[in-house]
């Protein structure tokens, strides 16, 4: 079963890469952008067919390795 997770920086953590991307977009003429925040996306294929168990497993991975909870939030976005 495939589980996807998104890791994003917490609101009050500075994201210099997002800022530079914002500036570049601005320079290209995309002037309607308020803010850009960069994150990470993981697609994990687990040996588990129960969606609840698969989700719990990936949540545990997020807490222990994939995200650093001092600066990042995680969100399990889909299981299929």
């Amino acid at each position, binding site marked *: 079963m495939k589980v996807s997770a998104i890791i994003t920086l917490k609101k009050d953590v500075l994201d*210099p*890469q997002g800022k530079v991307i914002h500036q570049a977009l601005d320079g290209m003429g995309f002037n309607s952008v308020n803010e850009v925040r960069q994150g990470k996306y993981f697609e994990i294929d687990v040996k588990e067919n129960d969606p609840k168990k698969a989700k719990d497993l990936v949540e545990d991975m997020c807490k222990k*390795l994939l995200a650093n909870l001092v600066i990042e939030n995680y969100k399990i976005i889909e299981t299929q």
Partner: protein
Amino acid sequence: MKSSVITFPGSNCDRDMDVALTKFGFKNKMVWHNDQELPKSDLIVLPGGFSYGDYLRCGSMASKSKIMNSVINFAKSGGLVMGICNGFQILVEAGLVPGVLLRNKYLQFICKNVHVKIDNKENTFFKNLDKKVLEFHIAHNEGNYFCTNDQLKEIEDNNQIAIYYCDQNGNTNDQINPNGSIKNIAGILNKEKNVLGMMPHPERMIDESLSGEDGSIFFKNLLNNIK
């Protein structure tokens, strides 16, 4: 005195650290990340470099390697552990010192000499040092120290900030801050003061003809403190 330097895949300051420790009288052993057991040591050093190519987050993969279980146990039982640069990043990812190291504020890899002010001498690393400001070298892309407000209060209350970036007279301010670190923090101790993580490299300042000698002052003093 016995020391051990851990080599992770991608470490590149491990041999420099070996040269420095040996020069000042440590009997040093190199330890591979995939080993389980640490040799008997008075000091463990996690060296600088780019362990695992900085994949995921700097230091995150190395912090989960086999040898780190022994390093964590060694630190928890009061053993001296020092992480330099990437070693500092590994220490924060392993949870041995608080906070994280973010990308430098202006997105540049910084490689230059800096001055650091030693704020806290009530620990084995800096005790008895007769200088208040030392000149070390930094070379990093992710050295921007960050922690939550609650963590900052805790580390300040517990006197855990070891060194700050400063000018040659010891003044700390935003202009002298190379990477955007909160409060100019360059190095931090754990609550018990037996684990030190710092971005600057003392091992690059041990030869007057190559660089400078403030690293020599640091290592000589460290050896005397451990003796």
